[in-house]
Each structure stands twice: as structure tokens, then as C-alpha cells.
């Protein structure tokens, strides 16, 4: 290769290094997104390649069946849980960045749930929530709160809260570590200067910390929202979406693979995709406007 001119080499490198990755991205990101839109206008069942163009029928069906949007109510539990989780993670990030004995150990401990295997974690909570032999009811009995015992997964008013809690349990530490990263990038002398000027702890948080982590916070809120819209693993592994726990994605997956209506499922996926993209655009817009 040394004999080739740099101009030829450059061509070879560009061609050789980019062709495969670009093809992969086109095949597995763009082609699915485009064909998803196409399938959404057909009555394809998912088996064989016969499909008829049905126009907007699938979309009409989605917007006329209340069931489809009922599933979004369940997604709301994950969103609210996510907001609470962001608040907690910010609190712990702030106190574990300040002066506190043992803060490094606490960071490790609180982050631990994030590295635990996701399916095994859900199954662990299935044991913990067990009506008769579960540790949660066991704990309530042990401290004399017998009347607080619940059928955590059986009670339809409680089950989505129980499931959303697993998500909070798992991801709080992750958000905390991301916040800690943002907090540590604030130069310490700003705080010193503020202390000299007599600022209180809350004032320092309000006027120094909060503005500096705004962009991370807005990104985190966006991820909380899109994560809630895309919630799938936890309710699916735990309940297969039974007992009123199906989320929008579970419904889409069932429509496609269980009920063999790929066309309708594609339309549902397109609706979700559009909702997610709208929120992403809003977040970027807000961020850019404030970034000026």
C-alpha cells in the first residue's frame, strides 16, 4: 500500500472503512423505518408476502379504538415514576458530591441496581411481591403492619405502581451518576466566591447548581418520557401484559406477533415513533432557545 499515492489511499480508506457501516445503518435503521411506514398502509399479516394497500384504515382503527390509547395510561405510571426517580437521583447526586463521609461507597451501592441483570431483577421483584411468601409482605408482618399487606401484583389498582417502582429501583443510580458527572464539571471556585458573598446552601443550589445542570436535566426528562413511552420489559416479563398492565409497546408486539396483524402493528409503531420524535424536537428547540 506504501506505493500508492495518498490520494488513492484516501479513496481506498474512505470507501473501505465506510461502506459496510453505512450499509448496516441503512439496512437496520433506515430501511425498517421506511418500510414500517409502508406496511402501516397495508393489511399484511406478517406471514408470506401478500399484502393489500388499505390506505388509512389502520390509522382510523387506532384512533377509533379506545383500547389502544388506554394502554398509554399505563405508560403514564412509568413517566410519573420516572419523574420521582429524577428528583431522588438529583438529591443524592447533590449530597454525594458535597462533603460527606463515605460518599464514594454510597455512590457504588446506589448504582448497583443498574448493573444487575434486567430480567433477573424483574423476577426478583416477582418473588419480593409474592402475596404469601414474598419479602415485602414478610417485612410488613415483621414490623407489625399486617394490615398494610397487599397483593402487589394482583390488585389492579396497585400493579402498575409496583411495576413502575422496579424501574425506579433500577435506574435511580444511573441518573444519579450522570448528575454527579454534571455537578463535578462545575468549577469549585464559583461556590467559594458565593460563600464569601454570604450565599446560603439553597441559594447556591438555586443560582449556581441548577442553571449549570439544566441541559443534563432536560435531557434526562426527555429520556424519562421516551423511556416511559417505550416501556416493555418489566410488564412483559412480569405479567405478559396481563391484569391491565399492557403498555403501548406490548400492545404493538402482541398485535404483530400474537394476532398476526403486522399492518396494524406498524401503524401503531408509526404513531409511537411520531410521538417520540415530536418530544425530541420540542426538547431540542427549548434547549436551543435557552442556550442563546
Amino acid at each position, binding site marked *: 500500500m506504501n506505493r500508492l499515492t*495518498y490520494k488513492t*489511499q484516501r479513496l481506498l*480508506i474512505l470507501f473501505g*472503512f*465506510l461502506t*459496510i*457501516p453505512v450499509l*448496516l445503518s441503512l439496512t*437496520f*435503521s433506515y*430501511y*425498517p*423505518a421506511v*418500510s*414500517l411506514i409502508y*406496511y402501516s398502509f397495508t393489511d399484511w399479516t*406478517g406471514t408470506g408476502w401478500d399484502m393489500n394497500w388499505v390506505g388509512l384504515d389502520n390509522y382510523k382503527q387506532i384512533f377509533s379504538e379506545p383500547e389502544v390509547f388506554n394502554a398509554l395510561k399505563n405508560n403514564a405510571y412509568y413517566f410519573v415514576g420516572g419523574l420521582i426517580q429524577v428528583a*431522588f437521583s438529583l*438529591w443524592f447526586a447533590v*449530597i454525594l*458530591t*458535597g*462533603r*460527606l463521609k463515605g460518599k464514594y461507597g454510597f455512590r457504588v*451501592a446506589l*448504582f*448497583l*441496581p443498574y*448493573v*444487575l*441483570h*434486567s430480567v*433477573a431483577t424483574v*423476577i*426478583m421483584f416477582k*418473588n*419480593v411481591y*409474592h402475596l404469601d*411468601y414474598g*419479602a415485602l*409482605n414478610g*417485612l410488613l408482618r415483621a414490623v407489625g403492619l399486617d394490615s398494610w399487606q397487599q397483593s402487589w401484583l394482583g390488585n389492579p389498582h396497585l400493579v402498575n405502581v409496583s411495576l413502575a417502582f422496579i424501574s425506579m429501583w433500577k435506574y435511580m443510580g444511573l441518573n444519579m*451518576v450522570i448528575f454527579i*458527572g*454534571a455537578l*463535578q464539571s462545575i468549577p*469549585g471556585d464559583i*461556590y467559594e466566591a458565593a*460563600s464569601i458573598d454570604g450565599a446560603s446552601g439553597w441559594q447556591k443550589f438555586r443560582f449556581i447548581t441548577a442553571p449549570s445542570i439544566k441541559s443534563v436535566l432536560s435531557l434526562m426528562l426527555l*429520556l424519562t418520557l*421516551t423511556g416511559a413511552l417505550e416501556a416493555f*420489559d418489566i410488564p412483559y*416479563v412480569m405479567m405478559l401484559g396481563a391484569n391491565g398492565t399492557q403498555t403501548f409497546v406490548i400492545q*404493538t*408486539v402482541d398485535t404483530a*406477533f400474537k394476532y398476526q396483524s*403486522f399492518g396494524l402493528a406498524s401503524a401503531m*409503531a408509526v404513531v409511537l*415513533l411520531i410521538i*417520540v420524535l415530536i418530544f425530541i424536537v420540542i426538547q431540542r428547540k427549548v434547549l436551543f432557545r435557552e442556550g442563546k
Partner: protein
Amino acid sequence: MDQEKSSPLFTAFKYLTIVLALFVVFFPIYSVFVGAFKTQMEYYQSSSLALPHDFFNFDNFKKVYDVGDLGLGFKNTLIILVAAVAGNVVLGTMVAYALGRFDFKLKKPIMGMYLVAQVIPMVTTQVATFSVIQKLGLYNTMGAPIILYIGADVLQIVIYLQFVNSIPKDLDESAMMEGASLFKIYRSIIFPLLAPATATLIILKTISIYNDFYTPYLYMPSQKLKVVSTAIYSFVGPNAAQLNVISAGILIIFIPTVVLFLFLQRYIFAGVTNGAVK
């Protein structure tokens, strides 16, 4: 950061919240830990919080490992993991070198393509991805998750592109003065200097692939192709196995990433911080 001492009452409040959080984090883990060493009788008769009679009772672990196909699961997960991560590292560094070091007509469109791909939520397009995998004849093969982890994710490109710009261009230029080929520059200068980014990538990818349930569940229903996620899932599902045996399975599956985490804490913290705020 905060140089001032807070009031003792406030400090006490901080510790109180930490203790509560630690309890919430460790309580479920404690319960499966003690449960995993209990016999079936013991599990269903003793309190779920009580310690087991015998911490050397490994029967549950043996049982879940054999009946639950965990050995097969670990083997398949490892194969997929190594292939996918290696593919990510090789292709990711190549793209970063080509896009980070050269100017050419298609550079902007390709960069834009990756930026847009980043925001397409994978989970929504899965229905259509499924038909692509079928057409390629990859359904029910390990090729399906491997190629999806490599091709449908842009994390590696985001991480490497950020990093490649911090490698001084002087290094390339002086190598060119000595007559090194561009491929040699990639292999002997860029690739090795990207090592910190590679470490971050390997860690993030390992955690996400080990945890992934959706992809193997959807694309590899075959019994022989069970990975850790699908193995424990099918063990718990129809078999309605005993809770003590399930507890042992959960512990076994927890171990690899916990060990990884305890040894590589610093890199993992740095990795999630850089990987998330892209």
C-alpha cells in the same frame, strides 16, 4: 464542591435519606440471597426474612443451572457478546477515522445519517426490522442479535467520534512524513490511542447486551439458542419452578456484571457519564 459545613441536623437528614435508600436497594437483594440457600420446605415455612439454616446448601444452584439451561445461556451470551463487541470496536474505529480525519463530499450526509439514526427508537421499528432479519435468513440464528447489536446501534460511532478529535493531527502528519500508509496510521496510531473510548464502549455494550431480553426473545426462539435472559425467562414461566430455586438462578445471573462493576467502577462511572450525555 461545597466547601462549607452544613448544620449537624441537615447532615443527619442526609444520612437518614441515604440509609433509607440503601435499605430499599438491598432489601430485595437480601431476600433472594437468603432464599437461594433455603430448602423448599424451609422457604415456604420460615419467614422470608430469616437466614437459611445452612449457607452451604448449594442444591438450588445446581438444580437451576442444570434444569434452567443456564450453562447454555452463558455460552451463547458470551459468543454473541464477543462477536458484537468486536464488530462494534472495529467498525466504530474505522468510521471515526474516516469521518474524523478526512473531508469529502459525503461526509456531512453520513454524519447527519448517524445523528438521525440516533433518535429513531429501535423498539418502535422492531416490527419492520423483523421482516428484514427474515429476508436475510438470519431468523433463529445468532447472526440476528449480532448484526443488530452492530448495525442498528450508533453508540460506538458517537463515542469514537468525540474521542478521535482529541487525538492531535500532528501525529498523523509526522507519520506521513516518514512514509507510513494511511492504513498503518489507523492501525498503529489511531486505533491504539482510542483505547480509553474502547474501554468505555466495551463496558456499556457488555452491560446492555447481557441485559437485553427483547432481541433474543424475538429473533431466537429456538431452545438451543437460549441466552441468559431468555433462559431464566422460560425457566420461570411455564415450569412454575420453586421460589427457592428461582432465587438461586437470580443470584447466579447477577454475579457476572456485579463482579465486572466492582472491578471497573471508575470506568463504568466515566462510561455512563460520557455515554449518556452525548
